């Protein structure tokens, strides 16, 4: 059930609101009638242009951008603030025009409208578009009813498939296809993006298979749910209805810290937005340098694997020649890093500007946009490339259970001088003992390393 019209409608309506805001802001200007229209048109044009660019950078109108409602609203307001800020600066530059105070009117009209609209769209999206893929193990009555229940609830969850226990017949009235038996769980998790697994088994006859599935899921770090009772209740209900709202107890492989997680996301948005604002002159200079000194685009978009294996485009300043990926195969023999990662010290594909921006990690700055979009975080395991993930062992895939980040333990601990397995252990340690305070420590440790250019390649 794709409804691209929601997004198109949202886009058009946002445009109308922006123009309306501009119309109100330019009303009653103390000029001749002719001027009034010119100012109004320029202002509307600028507003819509800025909004379109900003919306594109933040993937504001993508059907699925992986942000929660809170995060999305914060970003919407931020985007509006940025557009407004730039417009105010632009208007200050035109001396005759001193309508700064009229912006208050613009804001009053446009902002609540856009935010309210966004909430409506998100609500519609949540009803219409299932996005969190879940897997159900068990094709018996419990598994089937669980799947139907998820379909009925119509929120953001989608059943992508079933695995059956070995004693279950193949059932034909399921809301999703059967992908194999419970023993295929590991293969399925390697192939598909799954955000939660429902283990709909009976503890009397399927106990050992359920336990096996739990072992696999813990190794992968994927959240799972077990039937709350496994018993028949004709009257009794859980005292705390919310604890088992859907009849399942939900488990995570990490300690659940919702408040800290929300604060982390808020920090990510604030920090990346202000860093982008502060560093934009530097980034502009670097962009020009890259464009002038070598052929090819300024930014390098690489597919990386995000949370729960969902791929995204990670942005970097291009530091290599344009056909670097093709040359990689030829250089594979010289790989200096054990395991599935490719790194060599004097990579001949790196350009002169590239070497400099790499030394001071300037090439990573565009990832602040990834952070703002919600695909990455400031602190978190570095996102791997898909070919790396394909060669991961099961336990290493647990790295993908959190949002990837710009910096992590590995980056502040001597970088390339440690082995791949140690690197993985460091990431696991980070995931298992995550706290906000630890994040800030890592950020503080990262800053001097980046500034000194130590250990970077």
């Amino acid at each position, binding site marked *: 059930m794709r409804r691209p019209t929601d997004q198109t409608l949202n886009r058009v309506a946002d445009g109308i609101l922006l123009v309306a805001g501009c119309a109100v802001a330019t009303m009653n200007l103390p000029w001749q009638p002719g001027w009034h229209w010119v100012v109004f048109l320029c202002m509307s044009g600028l507003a819509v242009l800025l909004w379109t660019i900003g919306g594109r950078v933040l993937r504001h109108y993508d059907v699925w951008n992986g942000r929660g409602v809170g995060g999305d609203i914060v970003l919407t307001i931020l985007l509006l603030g940025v557009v407004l800020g730039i417009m105010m600066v632009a208007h200050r530059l035109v001396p005759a025009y001193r309508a700064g105070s009229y912006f208050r009117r613009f804001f009053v009209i446009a902002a609540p409208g856009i935010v309210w609209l966004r909430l409506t769209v998100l609500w519609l999206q949540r009803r219409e578009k299932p996005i969190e893929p879940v897997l159900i193990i068990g094709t*018996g*009555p*419990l598994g*089937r*009813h*669980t799947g*139907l*229940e998820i*379909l*009925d609830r119509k929120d953001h969850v989608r059943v992508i498939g079933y695995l059956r226990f070995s004693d279950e017949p193949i059932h034909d*009235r399921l809301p999703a296809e059967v992908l194999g038996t419970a023993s295929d769980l590991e293969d399925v998790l390697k192939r598909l993006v799954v955000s939660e697994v429902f283990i*709909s088994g009976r503890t009397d006859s399927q106990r050992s298979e359920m336990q096996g599935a739990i072992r696999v899921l813990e190794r992968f770090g994927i959240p799972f749910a077990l*039937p*709350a*009772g*496994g018993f*028949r*209740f*004709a*009257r009794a209900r859980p005292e705390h209805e919310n604890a088992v709202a*859907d*009849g399942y107890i939900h488990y995570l492989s990490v300690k659940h810290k919702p408040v800290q997680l929300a604060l982390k996301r808020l920090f990510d948005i604030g920090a990346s937005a202000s860093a982008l604002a502060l560093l934009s002159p530097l980034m502009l200079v670097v962009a020009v340098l890259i464009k002038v000194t070598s052929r090819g685009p300024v930014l390098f978009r690489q597919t990386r694997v995000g949370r729960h294996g969902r791929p995204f485009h990670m942005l970097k300043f291009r530091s290599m020649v344009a056909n670097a990926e093709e040359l990689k195969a030829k250089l594979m023999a010289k790989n200096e890093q054990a395991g599935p990662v490719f790194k060599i010290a004097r990579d001949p594909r790196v350009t002169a500007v590239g070497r400099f921006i790499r030394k001071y990690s300037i090439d990573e700055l565009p990832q602040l946009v990834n952070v703002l979009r919600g695909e990455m975080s400031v602190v978190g395991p570095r996102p791997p490339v898909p070919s790396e993930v394909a060669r991961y062992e099961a336990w290493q895939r647990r790295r993908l259970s959190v949002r990837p980040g710009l910096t992590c333990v590995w980056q502040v601990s001597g970088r390339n001088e440690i082995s791949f397995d140690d690197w993985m252990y460091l990431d696991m340690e980070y995931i298992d003992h995550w706290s906000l305070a630890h994040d800030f420590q890592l950020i503080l440790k990262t800053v001097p390393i980046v500034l000194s250019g130590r250990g970077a390649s």
Partner: protein
Amino acid sequence: MQIDAKRTVLLVEDHAREREIIRRILVDNDFNVETTPDYHGAVKYLSQFVPNLVCLDLTLPRESGFELCEYVRKDARFRFVPVLVVSDRSSPEDMAQAEYVGANAFLKKPFTGPKLLKYVTTLLDGPHASRPSVRRLRRGDVP
């Protein structure tokens, strides 16, 4: 056993008002309805007659609807009598348990008259052998 051509529904529901509402809906649509508030009343009726359909609530004053369903399924006389569970206990687990004890369909409370009728008529006229899960009717595909 039946004298008249009307089909009989045995309705087991403890809540007097809900019992009356369901009874009214079925009677209005030409069903013969026998009502009883509990397991024992139902067992007493079943010892003498074979209804066309058993419609029961899970929460009953003494023995539960699950037990009644098990009782019905144990007796070969009722092999072809469909059992419709009407209950506000509607977690996937409750529905699965109802299926384990042999219920043919599960109607969640609250429901509308047309929906109840759709369930009842599908259970009575649909292909019994395949034990239709009438719950799927809501999505429009008749089993």
